[in-house]
């Protein structure tokens, strides 16, 4: 759930290509209930956003024709996924550390982050990633928190703004503080009821949770907190 569709579907591709004619096969893409799925979003985020109210396994449709140029980025090789993943990591570090930590690392460390993700090797990944989760002892947290807030069916794909984890008085900002600041509708009840849920990795964290803690412990491998605002399930 923390990886990307095009990174984990080699077997799917091979399976379907066995029964297709060579000339019919062009770039693979995925869709759920009519919505093309963005391969450059982590799979867990896609599930939270589009299907969190359904039971696993998640059934999605595979396509090899009619690539939706207006909706999806192309993904012609693993290099594209690696470049995207590394760009997210770099952007996250620009926010957390003004890029100091990522720039001090050697190319082989960057490669190790990617290989750890690609080969699903937790220890390999965290040996490097732990440095991206540190901060100077005189500070209480990162400079800004890398996060994106998603809501299905809006034109704008996500909300991303500068947000400090520590208030000027030194108190830790919470998830609730973040939402109040950048997406108040997510935590405002309508007619006395909450119409939406706030979800990260398939769970609803308490709004009192310090955002610094969430960033250190519940970020995706790209070092971003991907937060979904979804309708309350009606059952």
């Amino acid at each position, binding site marked *: 759930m923390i990886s990307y569709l095009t990174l984990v579907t080699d077997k799917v591709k091979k399976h379907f290509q066995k029964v297709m004619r060579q000339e019919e096969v062009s770039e693979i893409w995925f869709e759920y209930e009519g919505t093309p799925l*963005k391969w*450059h979003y982590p799979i867990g985020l896609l599930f939270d956003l589009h299907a969190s109210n359904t039971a696993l396994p998640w059934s999605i449709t595979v396509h090899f024709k009619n690539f939706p*140029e*207006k*909706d*999806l*980025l*192309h993904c012609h090789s693993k290099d*594209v996924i690696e*470049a*995207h993943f590394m*760009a997210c990591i*770099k*952007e996250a570090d*620009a*926010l957390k550390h003004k890029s100091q930590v990522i720039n001090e690392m050697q190319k082989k460390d960057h490669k190790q982050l990617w290989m750890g993700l690609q080969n699903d090797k937790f220890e390999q990944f965290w040996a490097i990633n732990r440095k991206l989760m540190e901060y100077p002892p005189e500070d209480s947290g990162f400079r800004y928190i*890398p996060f994106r807030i998603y809501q299905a069916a809006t*034109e*704008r*794909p*996500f909300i*991303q*703004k*500068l947000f400090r984890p520590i208030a000027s008085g030194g108190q830790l900002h919470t998830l609730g503080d973040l939402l109040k600041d950048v997406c108040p509708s997510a935590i405002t009840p309508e007619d006395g009821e909450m119409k939406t849920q706030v979800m990260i990795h398939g769970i609803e964290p308490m709004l009192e949770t310090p955002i610094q803690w969430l960033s250190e412990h519940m970020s995706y491998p790209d070092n971003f907190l991907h937060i979904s605002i979804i309708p309350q399930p009606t059952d």
Partner: protein
Amino acid sequence: MKDFADGYLSKTHFQVTNRNVPPDLKEKNKDNIEQMLFMHVEESLDDSQVDGVCATAEVIRYEYHVLYSNSYQVPVLYFRACFLDGRPLTLDEIWKSVHACYQARLLEGPWDTITQQEHPLLGQPFFVLHPCRTNEFMSSVLITSQKENRCTNYITSWLSIVGPVVGLNLSLSYAKLASEQMLI
């Protein structure tokens, strides 16, 4: 640089093989953000005029957006290009269309690379000139202009450096405007 988080500048430009058609400049600001020094260029070409031109030539429609990256605190150039029938250019075709004099520099450990990314406000695929090294080359521009006591518009200077790499050329009238008006 003030933050214009929710808006972007946009410009559409038709290019007929080797001939540059004068651009039609629009400003699309969703919020009422500060005025930028982009002005409507006098000769403009609207969509209907393009048809007459393209009988035997290939016409490519370029669309450029300038956005601001909060994360890197610099402007970023997004663009997309398609043929008149709507077919979008591939990354390869984009690379090939980069002016010959920039090709070598781009290929040898470039200071900015072009990749495809999701537009942060529209959600659609665009090509992007990466912002990582912007501060490096912009700081020398700013230091020099301070020393010479010149008025510089950051966006105009930045765009005049990165724009030509991807076919976006600024007319000199922008520079004249910058020196006549107040810095933002």
